[in-house]
């Protein structure tokens, strides 16, 4: 199906474990973004990518790693999860860094 998907939709992990959140889009959009949504903070940009093999830090990149070897995929890895990384994570894509299309989100709980 066309669109943008995220997996898993829900994840519970323990402090210190590595977790990877997946994002896949079928539009061949150049830009992809990772946000976290927390009460009182709205959406905050973690990392973004303007094209394959090009990534840049956003507002809150610490503790996260991204890669973009293929245009359609943009995984987000928490190298050593902390409780402060409990959040809802949204991936988005855009053809021209303009109007963005969001995935359904991944709710991550770090215990």
């Amino acid at each position: 199906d066309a669109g943008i998907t995220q997996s898993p939709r829900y994840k519970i992990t323990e402090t210190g474990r590595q977790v990877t959140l997946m994002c896949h889009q079928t539009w061949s959009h150049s830009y992809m973004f990772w946000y976290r949504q927390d009460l009182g903070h709205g959406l905050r940009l973690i990392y973004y990518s303007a094209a394959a093999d090009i990534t840049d830090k956003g507002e809150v990149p610490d503790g996260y790693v991204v890669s973009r070897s293929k245009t359609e995929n943009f995984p987000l890895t928490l190298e050593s999860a902390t409780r402060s990384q409990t959040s809802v994570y949204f991936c988005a894509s855009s053809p021209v860094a303009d109007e963005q299309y969001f995935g359904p989100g991944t709710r991550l709980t770090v215990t």
Partner: protein
Amino acid sequence: AQSVAQPEDQVNVAEGNPLTVKCTYSVSGNPYLFWYVQYPNRGLQFLLKYITGDNLVKGSYGFEAEFNKSQTSFHLKKPSALVSDSALYFCAVRDRSADKLIFGTGTRLQVFP
């Protein structure tokens, strides 16, 4: 630096009444401005955007927004609210020299029957 302010955490309105959700912004140059809506347990959906031209922008579901350069505002409006409009609304801004959006903290709209 770019920034967006949504001064109201929540807006309550009766069904059939007009609604306004406020947004002010700060950018160094001419802005690109956006409104998104988020329904429970869903991702954000694009509503409308201002790039250039007419200051009144029309978008999805009967929403519109007015760009006011002197007041650096981009308020979202709808002439007649529906209960189904109840959701979380986000304003976002992009400086034309940048390639990422800055989002506000969101305003929860509650429309009562």
